[in-house]
């Protein structure tokens, strides 16, 4: 563990945003925005530099306080974390730029929401911390930072609906965290360590481990709005301010997924069964169908987009069954692991870009029209072609049409599905695409329709539209470096690994 190169970046990635956030509190609203934006650009730049650093040096670590685990905390930045951080950086920078124009445009009426900036920086720090963390308890703290700042951002608009949704979100988040923490407590009790690397070596299968796995999984499922627990997501995401919605759906939910994936892959391998993976996959599959269908049935733009997040997160869960090898399958022969991992990573990235763009576009529309009932989208294509373009491109990525990132992810997912022989997931992937196409094109259809009556239309800063469009394009551009990226990711320990399923009933309760 300690033989890996040390780098200051992990510490900076968490420290700097919070420092800037703290600093920004001293400024007046306008200054807060300036400092916040600067901080965002700085953090984004830092994230990208860190990504490059990892590309050059391989996995880097930062031993906080100089205390080795298990007593101390280790920040570890492997290629997987680096990619997530890099993604957060890019998406974050664009959303920040958008937010800058967005809030400036409404400064006069709403005061410009200066709190956005420190909260967003806190959120960013939390995300970076989460991706870097190698410690179960520290993960808890980071998800709490993320959770609180996310809810705070979600209620920032001050609207009643947002606040009710925010409270629901917050309660769900707390419940999820507590469940997670319960699992952490049990793990600590049974192993005496919190460090993921050590845990992998010392964790023994047994009733406690299984239970800990259960509550941790469920807790994280709640936080990432996995299928039966998606209840908080659509209202919260849809009622927030546009840049916030973008942040929440593009980045925040991914955090919980990231932990869940890492814990399953790196820590709890000893007690995971093939069929458990199937259940997670099933939850994902239902989420895909249900979320897409619900999105299809919604009448307001942001609700559509929010429900769509539920579905898109479902795809993420669907890689779990592929990563667990049925009893008797040798890890060496499982050639579907790499595609499945690629699918997961790409789905995260593609969704981050596309959904961010989608929400930002929704924000533009709301700014222009004053509301986002889908009926009012009529004739938008001629009034705001760039925004419609952004929606179209982002939507295409969500659907998974080539050559978007979403396509790449679905390609890899399907490939994994076929290679592993778990063909029953394939129809779900397709049905999901199909339904997604349903709502995406419902929007476009309206955008191209001629307006029945001319609604008042406020002009929107061009910068907003450019940000949304660039993000949408980003969801396509991520495919270009795919080969290199996969190669890079393969240097991470987790990437491409699978869990050997324990034999049914073999090891449970034999203590």
């Amino acid at each position, binding site marked *: 563990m300690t033989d890996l190169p040390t780098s200051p970046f992990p510490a900076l990635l*968490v420290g700097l945003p919070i420092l800037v956030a703290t600093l920004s509190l001293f400024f007046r609203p306008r200054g807060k925005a300036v400092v916040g934006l600067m901080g965002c650009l700085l953090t984004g730049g830092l994230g990208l530099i860190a990504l490059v650093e990892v590309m050059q040096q391989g996995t880097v670590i930062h031993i*906080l*306080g*100089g205390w080795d685990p298990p007593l101390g905390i280790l920040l570890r930045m492997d290629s997987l974390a680096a990619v997530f951080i890099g993604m957060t950086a890019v998406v974050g920078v664009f959303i920040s730029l958008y937010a800058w124009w967005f809030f400036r445009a409404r400064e006069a009426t709403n005061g410009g929401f200066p709190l956005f900036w420190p909260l967003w920086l806190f959120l960013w720090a939390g995300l970076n911390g989460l991706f870097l963390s190698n410690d179960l308890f520290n993960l808890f703290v980071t998800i709490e930072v993320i959770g609180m700042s996310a809810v705070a951002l979600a209620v920032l608009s*001050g609207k009643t609906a947002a606040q009710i949704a925010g409270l629901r979100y917050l309660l769900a988040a707390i419940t999820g965290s507590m469940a997670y923490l319960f699992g952490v407590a049990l793990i600590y009790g*049974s192993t005496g360590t919190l460090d993921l690397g050590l845990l992998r070596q010392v964790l023994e299968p047994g*009733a406690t481990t299984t239970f800990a796995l259960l509550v941790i999984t469920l807790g994280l499922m709640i936080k990432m709005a996995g299928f039966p627990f998606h209840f908080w997501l659509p209202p919260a995401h849809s009622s927030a301010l546009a840049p916030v919605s973008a942040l929440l759906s593009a980045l925040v939910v991914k955090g919980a997924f990231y932990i869940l994936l890492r814990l399953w892959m790196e820590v709890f391998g000893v007690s995971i069964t093939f069929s458990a993976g199937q259940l997670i996959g099933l939850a994902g599959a239902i989420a895909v169908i249900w979320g897409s269908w619900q999105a299809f049935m919604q009448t307001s733009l942001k609700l559509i987009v929010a429900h769509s997040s539920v579905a898109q997160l479902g795809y993420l869960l669907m890689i779990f069954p592929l990563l667990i090898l049925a009893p008797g399958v040798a890890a060496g022969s499982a050639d579907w692991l790499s595609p499945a991992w690629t699918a997961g990573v790409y789905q995260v990235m593609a969704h981050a870009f596309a959904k961010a763009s989608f929400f930002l576009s929704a924000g533009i529309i709301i700014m222009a029209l004053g509301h986002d009932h889908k009926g009012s989208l009529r004739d938008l294509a001629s009034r705001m072609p760039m925004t419609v373009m952004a929606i179209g491109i982002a939507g295409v990525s969500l659907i998974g049409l080539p050559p978007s990132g979403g396509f790449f992810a679905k390609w890899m997912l399907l490939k994994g599905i076929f290679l592993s022989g778990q063909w029953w997931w394939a129809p779900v992937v397709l049905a999901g695409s199909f339904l997604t196409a349903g709502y995406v094109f419902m929007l476009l259809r309206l955008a191209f329709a001629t307006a029945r009556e001319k609604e008042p239309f406020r002009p929107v800063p061009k910068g907003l539209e450019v940000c949304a469009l660039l993000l949408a394009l980003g969801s396509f551009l991520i495919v270009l470096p795919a080969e290199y990226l996969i190669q890079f990711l393969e240097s991470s320990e987790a990437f491409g690994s699978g869990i050997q399923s324990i034999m049914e009933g073999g090891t449970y309760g034999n203590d």
Partner: protein
Amino acid sequence: MSVLIDLLLAILTVYLALQCLLAQRLSQSVFLFFAFGLALALAWVRLGAVDVAITEAAIAAGFMGVLFLDALRDFSPAVSENQEDLKAVQNPPSKNATKSLLLPRLALGLGLGLFLLIALEAVWKTPDGGGLTAAAVALLPESGVEHPVTAVLLNFRAYDTWLEIGVILLGLLAIYAAGGINLYRKPGVAAKDPLLRQVILFSTPVLFLFGAFLLYFGKTGPGGAFQAAVLWGAIGIMLHLGGWPVFAVLPRWLGQLILTLGLGFFLVLGFLFMARGDALFEYPPAYAGILILIVETLAAISIAAALTTIYANINQMQEEPKQNESTT
């Protein structure tokens, strides 16, 4: 004998928790919550976790309790009945509605029961992992403090603690956000009961000293930044209650400085040493003790300020006129 006490305490805790949630009146709930917190604090003491006990009593039971109490003034002013009961009286639910509620509740109960059984089995069968006591003991001398909990908090796992201070500040920001208010609105003035003011005036220095003691003592024994901070925070709250809105008097920049000092200094210090080539939050063993003390003190001040401000802000919400819906 001690087992019996523990058993009784355990049963009491569970009972209080149950009652707290089952209580018909909200005020009952809140009081039971106080009691629950205290019972839990007792349990901490029984388990040898005095630091935790103090924190629990001060923050979880004390601070939260005060906030809940304060909230009581808000909710359902006339009758403290549960909302659903009130509504049930106002418009009697149809048979279907009750039925539709009953079944899910039964299912929930069943689920909870099974969950409990499984959870009990799991905790019961937890293998002995050994903990980190030995490691902590071994490294304690290098940490610069003598109290192991403080060592863990402010040195071994300083990162967590730093983040946690951040969470408190974040909580404050979040509450601002929840209020839909701007950061720069100063807390208003509360009631002015002369007797109360006297009591508050009297107790302020006492609390301050006790807090300082706890803070300093934290180096060697139970106590530390959080505990001190709660006491100092209590001062702020009481002053606020007494009509001396602390943060209203201070210049804005000062208030902000106080709020952010703990977090900021902690981090800047960490960065300074990092610039030297060390890791973040790595203190040279020689100066560790004093640095930790400074950090702790500043953290305590900031936390106290944050708690005060939180209280003040939450408290103030009710007085604020219904804000015009900001159209987004």
